[in-house]
């Protein structure tokens, strides 16, 4: 029996919405120009090809119109001039916990990271104001030849690998925000798993936005070589700020033949953050890519983890949950491209809307002409907690091969008075009863997470249910 739905047993106190005093060493002025892009690159001592790539991406960003879908109104409210594009809070990347500045440690302390690390972490990069300040790699990872670095160090130390794969899965021309990220990226993780190596423990990173108007443009690249496997986990708890923030990350995954990558995310951005992320993986022969994606906060999330099933027999799995409360719009889903025969995909999407929040499922399943005997199973479940909240679905299918087998189910439900009555008759308050129903609804997602994340997510939802009972 799994015990990870008993948060009280593990965490006695959960706090979020705090922030340390800003303490930046170098901070650029607000706004973006070609010069700012060049300055970022120069400051990082990057090779010329990266500088030029950034500049090209910057110009593409300028020319590229804003998407006309998702939530246009909210998108058009983003003031790109009011955003700081680079901020460095610590001079060098730390490897030793003792060397991490005290103030930053305090923040992590309240997130429970040091303790969690002892038990769980295979290595930590903690993104703090744009750049990794703490980065530890367990000896067993290093001895297996696994490279786990922040992206900046990855570029410095493994330039050829980065050059080979960077921007190949998500080109800067993909969309306006992938262009912006490519122009100003900073931080993120770089991971290479050699042939046949299985990283047993989840490899984890925490990201936070902690400076006013701070944009976070982290860039993550994970390469799993033939027959290898890795389970990568990231989590975010953002402090609440009154001005708008932009988070626009790009994540690229490459699963070579027979490899397996699982990428899990739990995000709890404060409700003023625009979370516009491009996540895509390419799966070669008989490989598997899994996106486990939880979006709890933010003002607007537009995120559709994608898998290109390029090799025969490859498999994609996307399990996502979204929680939208007052003033929030979660526009999330998934894209699967079946390009080769005998490829399979499963999409499970669950959303909860509360206090007038809006959740949208936007999904694409595409099958190319030459891809025979492919299968896809899509399930979207929405739970509405009140009358004012909204849920909508935009499923798209582009199938050019008649042997394709697809199952699609969609449901919208409400928490019933009868369910709450039943739970309350067993001694649970109305709020506890609501939390149970909500946590239960997300359980197919939560059970896929490492325990501490499951606990944090359950706890977050319990906090969210506070004051939800009239």
């Amino acid at each position: 029996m799994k015990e990870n739905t008993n948060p009280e047993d593990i965490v006695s106190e959960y706090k979020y919405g705090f922030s340390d005093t800003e303490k930046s060493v170098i901070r650029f002025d607000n706004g973006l120009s070609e010069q700012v892009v060049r300055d970022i690159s120069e400051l990082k001592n990057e090779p010329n090809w990266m500088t030029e790539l950034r500049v090209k991406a910057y110009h593409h960003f300028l020319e590229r119109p804003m998407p006309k879908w998702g939530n246009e109104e909210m998108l058009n409210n983003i003031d790109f001039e009011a955003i700081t594009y680079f901020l460095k809070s610590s001079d060098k990347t730390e490897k030793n916990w003792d060397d991490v500045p005290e103030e930053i440690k305090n923040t992590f302390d309240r997130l429970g990271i040091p303790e969690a690390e002892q038990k769980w972490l295979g290595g930590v990069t903690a993104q703090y104001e744009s750049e990794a300040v703490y980065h530890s790699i367990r000896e067993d990872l290093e001895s297996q030849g696994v490279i786990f670095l922040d992206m900046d160090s990855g570029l410095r130390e493994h330039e050829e690998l980065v050059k080979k794969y960077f921007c190949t899965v998500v080109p800067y021309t993909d969309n306006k925000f992938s262009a912006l990220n490519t122009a100003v990226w900073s931080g993120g993780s770089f991971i290479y798993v050699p042939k046949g190596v299985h990283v047993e423990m989840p490899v984890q990173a925490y990201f936070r936005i902690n400076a006013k108007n701070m944009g976070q443009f982290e860039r993550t690249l994970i390469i799993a070589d033939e027959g290898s496997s890795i389970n990568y986990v990231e989590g975010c708890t953002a402090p609440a700020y009154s001005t708008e923030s932009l988070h626009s990350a790009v994540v690229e995954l490459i699963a070579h033949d027979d490899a397996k990558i699982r990428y899990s995310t739990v995000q709890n951005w404060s409700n003023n953050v625009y979370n516009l992320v491009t996540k895509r993986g390419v799966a070669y022969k008989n490989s598997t890519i899994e996106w486990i994606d939880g979006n709890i906060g933010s003002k607007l999330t537009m995120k559709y983890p994608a898998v290109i099933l390029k090799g025969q027999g490859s498999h994609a799995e996307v399990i996502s949950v979204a929680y939208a409360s007052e003033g929030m719009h979660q526009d999330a889903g998934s894209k699967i491209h079946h390009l080769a025969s005998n490829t399979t995909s499963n999409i499970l999407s669950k959303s909860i809307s509360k206090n007038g929040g809006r959740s949208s499922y936007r999904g694409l399943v595409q099958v190319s002409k030459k891809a025979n005997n492919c299968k896809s199973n899509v399930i979207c479940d929405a739970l509405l907690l009140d009358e004012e909240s909204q849920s909508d679905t935009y499923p798209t299918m582009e199938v050019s091969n008649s042997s394709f087998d697809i199952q699609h189910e969609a449901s919208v439900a409400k928490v019933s008075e009868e369910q709450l009555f039943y739970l309350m008759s067993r001694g649970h308050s109305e709020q506890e009863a609501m939390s149970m129903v909500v946590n239960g609804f997300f359980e197919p997602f939560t059970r896929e997470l490492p325990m501490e994340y499951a606990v944090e997510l359950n706890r977050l939802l319990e906090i969210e249910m506070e004051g939800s009972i009239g």
Partner: protein
Amino acid sequence: MTTKKVSLLEVSNLHVSVEGTQIIKGLDLVINLGEIHAIMGRNGSGKSTLANVLMGHPAYEITKGEIQFIGKDLLEYSVDERAKAGMFLSFQYPMAIPGVQVGNFLRKSVSAISDVKLSAKEFRILLKEKMSDLEIDKSFLSRYVNDGFSGGEKKRMEILQLLLLNPKLAILDETDSGLDVDALKLVSEGINSVAKYAGCLVITHYQRLLELVKPDIVHIMIDGKIVKTGGPELAIDVENKGYDWLEVKA
């Protein structure tokens, strides 16, 4: 009838309506500790309404009357407070709670209601014992609460909760429906073990449960009122003669 009785529940002149329709029209009922009461009646007579009202279902409006539970005004209590005060309802139609595992749910419920704080180990031992009494398989614990359960499984789940939660007053709403003979026997044994030290209100259509759970007092309910109260023989009369002969009197 000379020993001193401890009153658990006192319902007086209860009137209940739902969405403007009066369902219960002046009902009186007193249940003392250690007594088993049965309420019999046709569909729509208001039996289940009474059960739900006692537990505090929000859809019902009490337009008149009083309910005292262990000397306190029950109407001041929320549903969970009633549960904590020692009231238990075995549901006619228990709700499915997808994603919530039976094991976790039972543990949380016991810790919400029980005065004695059990360690994880103590709870497991207790749970194992009660499950074995009801011949419930261990695999039950990792299933989701009532989700995809058969009618019989749902009823066993209710009785398992009854045994774990140790209420002072157990209300059993049509607990016998959907049970085969063997399951009925196990469930009855469970009810009888609780009835030794609690009060029981058994709501049923049929005599067959009452052969196994012997009531001290039988009430017949017609059109929102108790029209006749008697001993166990009254249940047999109803089984033989139906309700029509009582209706004339009503």
